[in-house]
């Protein structure tokens, strides 16, 4: 079975902090994704990566950056956290043209 592991289930940070969310997959998938989920707005794509060191913006990239130095790891970075980035963050991975598999999610609170 595919395993996508997110580093934290719950995280509390302060406004202005630099925040790192880590995601690791164990199936040699080319594609990795970061989504956020908010009540009433559903799941929206922040960034995705189709290869090491490659990244593409999704629907809501503002305020975020990403890093993919190794194939199995995809990091989401909040450069200067703000309260409107309080959300559920979900990482996923897939082979091209194949189903996406999701991690358990990180509930991030910015105080």
């Amino acid at each position, binding site marked *: 079975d595919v395993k996508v592991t997110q580093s934290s289930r719950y995280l509390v940070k302060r406004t202005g902090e630099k925040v790192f969310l880590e995601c690791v997959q164990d199936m040699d998938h080319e*594609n990795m*994704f970061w989504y956020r*989920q908010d009540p009433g707005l*559903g*799941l*929206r*794509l922040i960034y*995705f990566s*189709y290869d090491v060191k490659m990244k593409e913006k*999704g629907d809501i990239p503002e305020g975020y950056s990403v890093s993919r130095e190794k194939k199995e790891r995809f990091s989401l970075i909040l450069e200067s956290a703000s309260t409107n980035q309080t959300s*559920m963050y*979900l990482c*996923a991975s*897939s082979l*091209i*043209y*194949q*189903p*996406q*598999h*999701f991690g*358990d*999610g990180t*509930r991030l609170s910015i105080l």
Partner: protein
Amino acid sequence: GIQVEQSPPDLILQEGANSTLRCNFSDSVNNLQWFHQNPWGQLINLFYIPSGTKQNGRLSATTVATERYSLLYISSSQTTDSGVYFCAVAYAGSARQLTFGSGTQLTVLP
């Protein structure tokens, strides 16, 4: 971009009842997935079904790509089936990113 509509938005059932959830999409797709999000927020893969019919236990799904809809059937529902069911599609012109519907909130009463 591609539009995904799910219906009904909310569904309340007695344990043992059957239900059908619908997903309509506005363009050609090369990926369609059904997910169940449990109360802890985990997204569980149910089906990868860009076309055709699949069954897994009490659940089955059918996608008619030419008519741009998919159906998820839940038979003999159990309280553990409660949660939000999402349909997500990848537009055929973009092989990678999923667009999610707004979900169906299912509550199964004992």
